[in-house]
């Protein structure tokens, strides 16, 4: 799971795909996840990192993470 190389990501959570011209906004936690994917963290590592930082249970994070990754795939932002 990797973020496509040509995707531009700003510090404020703005994504731009130059090959399609599509742009996206992500919220801060989404931004954190994208950064972790860029740093080649596995899904389990991401879940552990988020549950350590946030007041939330593991099941909710797991459910939300898979949904988020699916949306990244749908928008062709990861390969």
């Amino acid at each position, binding site marked *: 799971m990797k973020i496509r190389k040509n995707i531009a990501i700003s510090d404020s959570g703005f994504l731009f795909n130059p090959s399609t011209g*599509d742009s996206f*906004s*992500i*919220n*801060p*936690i*989404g931004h954190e996840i994208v950064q972790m994917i860029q740093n080649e963290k596995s899904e389990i590592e991401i879940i552990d990192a988020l549950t350590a*930082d946030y007041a939330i249970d593991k099941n*909710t994070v797991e459910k939300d993470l898979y949904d988020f990754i699916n949306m990244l795939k749908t*928008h062709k932002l990861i390969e």
Partner: protein
Amino acid sequence: MEKKQYERPIIKSLNQGLMNKFGTRTEYMPVTHIDGVAVNELLQNYGSPLFVISERKIRENYRNAKRIFETRYPKVQFAWSYKTNYLNAVCNVFHQEGSWGEVVSRFEYEKALKNGVPGSKILFNGPDKMDDDLKVAIQNDSPIHIDHLDELYRLIEISNDMDANPRVAIRVNMDTGIYPMWDRFGFNYENGQAWDAINKIMANGRLRLVGLHCHIGTFMLAPSAYGIAASKMSELALQIKNRYGKIISYIDMGGGFASKNTLKGSYGLGADSVPEISQYAEAITSALLNAGFDNEELPYLYLETGRALIDDAGYLLGSVISNKRLSDGRRATIMDFGVNIMFTSFWYDHKISPAQEFGHHTEDCVLYGPLCMNIDVIRENVTLPPLKAGDHVVVHNVGAYNITQSMQFIALRPAVVMIDMKGQPHVIKRSEQLSTLEEGEVVPDYLSKFSL
């Protein structure tokens, strides 16, 4: 170290499209309190979902409307439209403020009497008045608003039998320039039916024609239509005086003023686009004052305003059951309240606010109710912060019609709480139990046992 507040990760595609001058509103401002009472506390104490009614808002709305009309016209009387919301506590707030009762069925009539409204101050409307209903109304001296000729003839017969002279008005329908024209109730003005009914009443002499009633439509966005209606009603009243020497003591303009809700398919938000009460008042009172009545013969103006006085005093609090993703990628959120208790979501895009703090990121979603039924959609498209299971929301402007038109389907209906003037909540209707629903059921003996 304290953990950070979690918010579901979201990604939102930024679309470049045509500019929309009306824009859409993003509801991320949380509504955490209603009249000073915490939403979380209300849900914890009374369960979710929960209807909440603000007594303060009802009184403010009523006093505002009364002031607006009374500063323009000297003789004004409001009658609370029971069908809009007939919870006794709600009705009694209006009655305490001086409002009479306006009912459209025997059931509502009995409710008004039981609440303590004198019979002479209950306006009896509606097409469904049976003989016994008419007798009771005559005995109580209630003004009977005649809807059709069959009712007129029955009323004359019953009055003859009782040797009574009931006070009556006829309901008049007319063309006020709006579409669709409401002509199924009452007697038409333009084609002479109204005159025909008036002539019959006057010729017979048994009934006392004291008023004229109309109700030109519902959620009326054109105040000018009320001006036209008031002119036609005045003309009718003046002609009755000319022909029969009879002074009509009241003109009842019915209801139909819009609330601040947003009708589905409308461009602007209701809060920005619906007329103010003062615009309706100006149209009606100008027409009455300019109609040519002698000062001492100016008729009373009766108003049966319902929705505009109660809608924004009602809130529905609810909770998120689940989030899911639809096949086309849209976010769907399932709430614990549906069209069963929010009938008005069929024609309004209700404003919905989160009841807790979120960041400023939002996503478009569909809001579904909990019913196992495809049409159970609260909002087809709404922009909300990333709600998660267990989060709470506040639905606005649900005070009118939702309680009276709620459906008992699959789920039990929730409690209703009224927050009083001091910020104290009171249960004004308990939540339904299985026993509430089974009270009238009878299982024949031979069906009482089975083995599986």
